[in-house]
């Protein structure tokens, strides 16, 4: 029983780390540009598949870095060509646009790579279990959590200390003032978009090594990321971090006792948070409500 619980808590933590990576990317874009990126799951899947294609040429480690970068480049192209036009308009339009893009992404990956699941090959030593008694924890699982933790730490350091990071945070609060202070807001938004998409691509590569790849996996990960943002509070990145881990662990623990409710528990958590604290755990009143 203890082992089962431990297994599911670690499982929840790992899933939570995914949600966090994905939700932080969504949150970055939402906060600065006011766009809910429905295509985020599509970018995640694309990152995974690019890693699958690149691994024979670059090895796993090369693909781990290059695939998310390529995904981010494509993200910026799409942002510049399509999404940029919708900034400042009714959020309805950016929702519909990214919704349509998500359809196109899913269909395109199916067209290029086929509908069957594909594995991302991971280095052999990562596939081994940590110890015989903890057979369910492979080194890869630890590795995923470490990569996610490093990525999140770097992101927060970037936002806290770098010039660009400060501008992104300032823009979240008052983009107009940032603009009048002479910051190129268009460039800032593109860079911020790239950062968000990079995180999506990275989670795609990591997820591919654990779960394998299939064209529909993106939409399955999208909804938990939404909930992570709502639970944590719209507008707060630390909130998103907490929210993602919380729903990951909650669904992991629920899976022990009541497996068929492991998705539903996230929504229950969201409803409770919205009832008790409508702005979310760490959200600020008045921001984007």
């Amino acid at each position, binding site marked *: 029983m203890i082992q089962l619980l431990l297994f599911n808590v670690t499982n929840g933590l790992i899933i939570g780390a995914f949600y966090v990576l994905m939700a932080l990317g969504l949150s970055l874009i939402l906060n600065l540009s006011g766009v809910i990126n429905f295509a985020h799951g599509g970018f995640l899947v694309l990152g995974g598949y690019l890693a699958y294609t690149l691994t024979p040429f670059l090895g796993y480690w090369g693909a781990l870095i290059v695939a998310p970068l390529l995904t981010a480049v494509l993200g910026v192209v799409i942002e510049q060509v*399509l999404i940029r036009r919708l900034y400042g308009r009714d959020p309805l339009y950016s929702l519909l*646009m990214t919704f349509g893009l998500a359809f196109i992404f*899913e269909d395109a990956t199916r067209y290029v790579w086929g509908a069957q699941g594909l594995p991302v090959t991971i280095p052999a030593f990562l596939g081994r279990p940590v110890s015989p008694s903890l057979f369910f924890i492979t080194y890869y699982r630890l590795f995923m959590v470490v990569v996610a933790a490093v990525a999140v730490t770097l992101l927060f350091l970037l936002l806290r200390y770098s010039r660009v990071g400060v501008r992104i945070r300032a823009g979240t609060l008052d983009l107009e003032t940032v603009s009048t202070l002479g910051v190129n807001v268009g460039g800032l938004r593109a860079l911020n978009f790239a950062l968000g998409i990079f995180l999506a691509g990275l989670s795609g590569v990591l997820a591919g090594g654990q779960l394998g790849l299939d064209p529909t996996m993106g939409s399955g990960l999208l909804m938990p990321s939404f909930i992570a943002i709502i639970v944590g509070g719209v507008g707060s990145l630390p909130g998103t971090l907490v929210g993602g881990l919380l729903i990951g662990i909650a669904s992991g623990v629920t899976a022990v006792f009541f497996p068929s*409710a492991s998705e539903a528990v996230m929504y229950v958590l969201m*409803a409770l948070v919205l009832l008790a604290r409508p702005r979310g755990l760490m959200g600020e009143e008045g921001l984007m409500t």
Partner: protein
Amino acid sequence: MKESGRTHPAVLVAIWVLLLLAPYWLGLVGGYTALGARVLVLGLAAMSLNFLLGFTGVLSFGHAAWFGLGAYGTGLALKWVAASTPLALLLGTLLGGALGAVLGAMLVRRRGIYFAMVTIAYGQVFYYIAYRWNALTGGDDGLRGFSRQPLEIGPWHIDIAANGVAFYYFVLACFAAAVALMALLLRSPFGHSLLAIRENERRARFLGIPVEFHIWIAFALSCVFISFAGGLYALLNNFADPNNLHYSLSGDLVIMAVLGGMRRFWGPLLGAAVFVVLQDYVSSLTTNWMSFIGLLFVAVVLFFPRGLLGIARRRSLA
């Protein structure tokens, strides 16, 4: 008040004549009666959503939840409660409407993107319940084992179960009743208050309109209407499945409203007709219909943000 979408009488007559004669002309242009019923049902769903989206200015992106609840409620009632089509439809509508009203109460202070996100997430709750609760809902395979029953009105016996044309007229009668009620609501002082909230929420508040209460009532009414449409959809297919609740259907309904023109009363019906016919046609041609629908979304946003009727109107003003 052109903005409230009052339609020219001649156009109104044309719409109703087309709808009334649909079983006779649909076959001539390569359609079929069930496709006509599908357009009516999804058109009613899109108009119900637009009651909120276009006329109150509230961005709900999870309306498939209430549509699907209506469908499941109707199917379950036919299966377990009584073999009566009207009673099942009533129970389905009540299920979706009541849950919509309760959850809507938690939403009324949210606006814009936040409202959209929370409505999407709420919608998915019911998707997972339908998907997971095998014993009641049939899970992923969908709810089967019910079928619409012939109508018994006094001495008359109308066989809507086997006769597709009779069923079309049943759907049309339901559609007409719902749409008439919706039009009456929009013309009432309540409907004008909704328009005022859409145009300028702060001013509406200063004029003493209880904004949250109005949005709540509008949300609940919209849920009732769309659950009714969902119930009709279950009757049309004799089937309900979790996709009736999924957020991708919510997106489809929003695009129908926008494609037709969400500031016009009849816009969503036109949008639904175009969308349903295109989807039917394209999915028979290619397996890549998802890309096609995706491109349609992108094209609508870039080129027809005011919808087809919006373009027609701009032309006529110029």
